[in-house]
């Protein structure tokens, strides 16, 4: 039994021609990155400096899920926000951003995302990633100074408020968590 199927000889020249390299428009990179930035949290800078330690005391972990909210003043860019029409609610001019690290301990989760007023409630822009094997998920997001509401989404469908943060009614029968960032003091509310 023949193991290999040979290409019919008449097709060979055509196939040769079809093998020529295809190069796509270099504009693809710009278009993809523009779309990526719209989906990402407000802008991040590369040069980070960790200036202050977290100001909240450590929490004891709850059985199923617990979260800690830590704020670090990392970097003070001259301006924040991307120009043009963007879905995340970033101010184009104004105060600094504060980098805030969100943490959720959810060992049984397959995926965790963060959605809030700072990213237009778009879970796709701030997925958490596993920080260890114990079920800790984290993401660091640049938040404009001010007050924001948010929640975690576990496995794409379960909305989980941050147990360690103040909670407020979301108007839909659930609770949102609240974070306030103040650059002046580098602390959080």
């Amino acid at each position, binding site marked *: 039994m023949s193991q290999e*199927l040979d290409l019919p000889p008449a*097709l060979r020249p055509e196939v040769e021609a079809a093998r020529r390299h295809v190069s796509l428009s270099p504009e*693809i990179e710009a278009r993809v*990155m523009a779309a990526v930035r719209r989906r990402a949290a407000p802008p991040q800078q590369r040069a980070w400096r960790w200036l202050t330690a977290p100001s909240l005391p450590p929490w004891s972990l709850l059985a199923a899920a617990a979260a800690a909210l830590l704020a670090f003043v990392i970097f003070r860019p001259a301006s924040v926000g991307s120009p043009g029409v963007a879905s995340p609610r970033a101010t184009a001019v104004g105060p600094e951003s504060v980098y805030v690290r969100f943490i959720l301990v959810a060992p049984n989760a397959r995926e965790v995302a963060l959605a809030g007023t700072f990213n237009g409630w778009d879970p796709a822009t701030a997925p958490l990633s596993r920080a260890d094997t114990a079920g800790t998920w984290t993401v660091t997001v640049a938040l404009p100074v001010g007050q924001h509401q948010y929640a975690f989404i576990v496995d794409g469908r379960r909305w989980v408020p941050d147990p360690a943060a103040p909670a407020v009614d979301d108007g839909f029968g659930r609770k949102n968590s609240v974070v306030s960032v103040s650059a002046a003091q580098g602390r959080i509310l």
Partner: protein
Amino acid sequence: MEPTPEPSDGTVVRAVLTGDVEQYAVLVRRYKDRYARYASRMLGSVDAAEDAVQDALIRAYERLPQCRDPEKFAGWFFLILRNRCFAERRRDRRSNGLDQVGEMAASEGSHASLERKEQARSLEQALLQLTPEQREVFVLKHVEELSYDEIAARVGTGVAALKMRMHRAYDRLRELLGEPQ
């Protein structure tokens, strides 16, 4: 002087996931053209391939947390692009002179001598007449020059099934391109 080694795909993916979104441009540059030929042969035109690759790169960013093995970003991205190619409805081909040339080749058989460009184009048109699965095995084997084992590993189908598809693809292509049986 040694050039600075490029970071691995896994390193870049992890950097993006921890917030360094701009690093994703490294992956875009690396993979923009990697599967461009595959996409353009699967979809029948470079324009369609550009749309597909662009969409796939954006979707890959959205799903990056689900990339189980960041070092294997290439294969994972290929599957996203592949799904996108299979989902694409066949576009209406614009009729132009080259189409007619292609059809002439079909009716005159292999005696018509065509420019390389037209040759590729007539094959491209013919490929679009195959089922996506037949087209894919043909493209991966003869354009991308993978072995059957490599194709099987990529698309998750057994080698025997792939060979059967290839048989059918050959038959259909001979028919379309007018080779005497």
